[in-house]
């Protein structure tokens, strides 16, 4: 799910502490706060560690009472079953294709419209922007039924088209790109127009290169939002060969593998690991994007 509302003003120095170091009498309290924060960190990261350790345990070790903390004989058997006996390579590929195409589509289409809304004068511009804003808060479930009917009519159920098209042009990307492009200096574009440059040239050679921060934020958030998206994919796809990773994992967790925790933990690792890598490497863009737009990946 992704949403946007009014931007929260943020200073760029968000990482810096606002307050000077607390005075000496507050020292003990500050130590207590630190201890609580470390406990909180353990509580939030702990389940991921538990997931990783669990994925390395054999089924026999899993059922042992009391449960072991560390795997006694770490094994990749669960992963081997996912990738050899089950069709996880296909689900992984499906997820990757859908997320990549949706991301590229949003970057292109949202930045084009963002440029038009920010820098071009044309009739209907204001109404179009109002329409974009109006749909920002509409919950995804509202479109579920008609979209399914539409995809059935177009014979697109169980295709990449069904998985991609409804996500290819989101309103929040337009909002983000418009805000970013509003900040571009008008003189720069005017100079280009005087020299006879086309609007497409100005957009692709001047506006886009100067909006890389917004594009990066939009790209990362769209990729992760799509990678994790579930409800529409669950509706749009019934054929197992078209499953995305979350649909496959949920189906196995509810069905024949519901007690096979080693397998389910390994499946979770496969969904979570790429996201963790992207997030930790690019975390700067997340918190900036979240703080300025309220987009939730």
């Amino acid at each position: 799910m992704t949403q946007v509302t009014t931007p929260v003003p943020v200073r760029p120095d968000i990482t810096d502490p606002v307050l000077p170091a607390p005075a000496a009498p507050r020292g003990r309290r500050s130590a207590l706060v630190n201890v609580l924060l470390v406990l909180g960190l353990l509580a939030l990261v702990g389940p991921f560690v538990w997931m990783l350790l669990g994925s390395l345990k054999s089924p026999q070790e899993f059922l042992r009472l009391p449960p072991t903390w560390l795997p006694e004989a770490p094994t990749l058997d669960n992963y081997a079953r996912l990738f050899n006996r089950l069709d996880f390579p296909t689900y992984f590929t499906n997820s990757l294709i859908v997320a990549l195409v949706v991301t590229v589509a949003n970057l292109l289409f949202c930045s084009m419209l963002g440029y038009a809304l920010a820098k071009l004068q044309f009739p209907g511009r204001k109404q179009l922007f109002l329409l974009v804003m109006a749909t920002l808060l509409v919950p995804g479930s509202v479109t579920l039924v008609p979209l399914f009917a539409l995809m059935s009519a177009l014979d697109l159920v169980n295709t990449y088209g069904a998985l991609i098209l409804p996500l290819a042009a989101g309103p929040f990307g337009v909002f983000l790109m418009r805000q970013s492009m509003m900040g571009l200096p008008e003189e720069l574009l005017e100079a280009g127009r005087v020299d006879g440059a086309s609007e497409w040239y100005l957009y692709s050679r001047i506006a886009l290169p100067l909006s890389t921060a917004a594009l990066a934020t939009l790209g990362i958030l769209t990729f992760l939002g799509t990678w994790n998206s579930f409800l529409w994919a669950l509706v749009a796809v019934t054929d197992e060969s078209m499953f995305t990773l979350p649909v496959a994992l949920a189906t196995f967790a509810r069905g024949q593998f519901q007690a096979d925790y080693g397998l389910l933990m390994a499946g979770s690792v496969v969904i979570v690991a790429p996201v963790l890598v992207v997030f930790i490497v690019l975390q700067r863009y997340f918190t900036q994007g979240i703080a300025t737009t309220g987009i939730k990946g």
Partner: protein
Amino acid sequence: MSSAAQTATGGAARQRASAAVARRRRRRRTAVGWGFAAPWTILFVVFLAGPILASLVMSFTDFGLRDLRNPVGTNIIGLDNYVQLLGDPVFLQAAGNTAYFVVAGVPLTLAAGLLAALGLNRAVLRFRTLFRVGYYLPVVTSIVAIAVIWRFLLHPDLGLINLLLGLVQIDGPNWLANPVLAMPAIIAMAVWRNLGFVMVIFLAGLQGVPADLYEASRIDGASTWDEFRYVTWPLLRPTTLFAAVITSIGYLQLFEEPYVMTAGGPLNRTLSVSMYLYEQGFGFLHLGYAAAIAYALFVAIAVLTVLQFRVLRSQT
């Protein structure tokens, strides 16, 4: 023809010509502007705006499986779906469960996120980034994966939570199979997953509190609690509103957690409105009825959003 008249007709011609140029330029600007807008707008109309309206229309019909191939055969049944909804005990149960989840979950998530933000903002910490990343981690991970992990964490015999409770000699219950405890367990998981998001919003809000206000309150001898109560909290009101609205909208659409962890049980105690919509629409193919459920949810979200704006605005 006098020279004056000549100039006049020449002026009119020039005016006409420049009007034509302006018209052409305007037409060109329209074409270029809509050219840039077209790809997004077409996708938007077909796959978002259109379905939003179609959903409303469908909620007044008995649209079902046979109508997928031949929509002409659909009957308009007026408000029947909505009337049926109000008398449907399972829907009312789902609505109550969802309300429970929102009413308990949103304040708890806001409180946890605010505490984390205040702590991180105040504490003298090394590895500040590590903490921000760690606290935010659950927000960016798939809810399905998290629900699978938590189902295992909450397992009565094999789960980490009862294992930890066992260390302090507490015999942990079977959380997800217990009609009273299942929803609180799901709420705890939602707080765990979303507090990082609220924390980032509050951290941004805290940047907007001028440091000299704290200095002034310290000179006046204010305690830490006074400082929070009379300086920080009032100034965080817009941030709180923003976080509350976003969190509520997300929580009203509760789906993945019960779908994966409990399948709505035990005794429908964790069945959410979105899950019931999914079951009715795609289990039984009562698509018109499902559209009505979707619109009821949509209205609830709109009403709650307006309400929050009213309440949190009026308290300034």
